[in-house]
């Protein structure tokens, strides 16, 4: 019998704890497949965030550390500096990375730390029940912006890739979408590229996934993809911002 599809070795046997229609599972799978394909699993370690993906340390099948909210890039700095022979990544949501962990991500990127950050942006705090995130869109209603995000009062959503792209040290920065199979295939290429650079010790690599939150958006899986396409993609442009390895390719 020929195996044509199987669970990546990089994922444990546990079932994901994510809601129906959530795209964390897709992001996990892309990372896991890429690690398998690049043969990085035995030298890999990761950092899980606080948020819906808090249990990522259970899902990835190598050694993992669980960080305090926002501190994943600081942990990853300590890990990579302690074990330069190993490869490191963090997996973080928008509240974790772009609010409480803003200092940690900016400075890890600015130091050009040799690890990969996977940033999942769904414009809302998922695990705590749908509060306003730093990436919540203008006029978007959440439980803590019940009248819609008032940009005159609380400011505009933060575009993290653009912010990090002002720094000199990062090696690779790309925003990808998980909203359709074709976009997922493109995202996989970016993930694999970032992890290749990680393996080759090129420098700081950053991937932003545009994702959804059907539960807290109050939409079903299909509607939430349509909503993200219509509302998020115009604000968060899908593009590669930095690829210092491009000329060599």
């Amino acid at each position: 019998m020929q195996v044509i599809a199987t669970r990546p070795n990089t994922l444990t046997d546990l079932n994901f704890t994510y809601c129906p229609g959530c795209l964390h599972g897709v992001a996990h799978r892309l990372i896991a497949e890429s690690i398998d394909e690049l043969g990085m699993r035995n030298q890999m370690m990761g950092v899980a965030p606080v948020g819906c993906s808090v249990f990522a340390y259970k899902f990835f099948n190598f050694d993992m550390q669980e960080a305090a909210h926002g501190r994943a890039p600081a942990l990853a700095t300590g890990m990579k500096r302690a074990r330069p022979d190993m490869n490191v990544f963090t997996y973080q949501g928008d509240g974790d990375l772009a609010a409480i962990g803003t200092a940690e991500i900016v400075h890890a990127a600015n130091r050009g730390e040799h690890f990969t950050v996977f940033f999942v942006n769904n414009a809302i705090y998922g695990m705590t029940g749908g509060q306003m995130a730093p990436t919540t869109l203008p006029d978007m209603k959440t439980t803590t912006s019940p009248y819609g995000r008032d940009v005159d009062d609380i400011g505009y959503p933060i575009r993290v890739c653009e912010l990090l792209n002002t720094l000199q040290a990062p090696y690779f920065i790309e925003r990808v979408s998980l909203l359709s199979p074709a976009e997922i295939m493109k995202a996989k290429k970016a993930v694999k590229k970032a992890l290749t650079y990680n393996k080759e010790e090129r420098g700081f690599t950053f991937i932003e996934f545009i994702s959804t939150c059907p539960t807290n958006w109050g939409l079903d899986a299909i509607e939430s993809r349509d909503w993200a396409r219509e509302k998020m993609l115009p604000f968060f442009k899908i593009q590669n911002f930095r690829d210092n390895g491009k000329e060599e390719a």
Partner: protein
Amino acid sequence: MAEKVLMKGNEAVAEAAIRAGCRLYFAYPITPQSELIEYMARMMPKANGVFVQAESEIAAINMVYGASGCGRRAMTSSSSPGIALKQEGISYLAGANLPAVIINVQRGGPGLGDIQPAQGDYFQATRGGGNGDYYTMALAPSTVQEFADMAALAFDLADKYRNPVIILADGLLGQMMEPVEFQPAKTEAELKELDNQHLDWCCCPNEDEPNHHHHEINSLEIDPVVLEQHVIKLGEKYDKITANEQRWEDYNINKDNEILVVAFGTASRICKSAVDELNDAGHNIGLVRPITVWPYPYDAVFKAVGPKVKKVVVFELNLGQMVQDVKIAVNGKVPVDFMGKVGGILFSTDEVKAKIEESLEEAK
């Protein structure tokens, strides 16, 4: 015998930490501990160690967490307001059973306070300091030599119990120069042994099947029944530390003591001078100096209250924090009196003497 060198406490403890196998050091500048981070910036690269000036105290302690989770000896240092910021990370270290060494060169508080020596962080160091049920061991040096020697002790205790250890110094010990003699640096073989001691639980490279491991460094247990067992286990560890690791110094403790003085760290140095002068003048004053302020040497303090002791007097550079532990230790046997100095100001030997003489007078 190694040669004695004259050094500031901040530099001496840094040198001693490197010799004790500190592989990674992460910190943020703050007075009065800046000589420590500056020494590490100069010397860690020469020792093949890692030095990173972090963007914040919070980042520094979390870098320590990451490095410690990889089984390496990692350290951070700061002064009081910075240590307050690190409490989140210290709680997570304790919850995840991670070893780490944290040096607090205390200054006056609360808030920004000032930059002079103080002992106002006693409660914080001995009662956990962050959220949840946990303790950190807390070692309180009183000389530059002892400050330096505590680096190796702190790392050994941290590794032995997989628990954070605080060295609770102060601005005086950090800034003052005294002769100090260092232990020899760990050899390459010893360092390798240290690096390998935690491989059964730390983040490390994997082997192929069937030896594949999945180590989780984590303080999260979402199931209350599992968390209950986790916290109970932590409690058992703290009981073991309490039973095994109490350290203190008895100074002129005898059955004819009239007054017992209890003081730690810098305060105890001044008290010793006062006790010496009073004893030279014909009195018999004993002094207990707790070296571990957690676990607190309650029994040692209790036993030091001799049959003729009329009063116990506690001296601290705060409004009265350790005095609560002394009262627990003395357990009503005799009255416990207190004298404190705050604002980063030290009491003089004469002030301490006057307080003890007053107590002698009252006890007549």
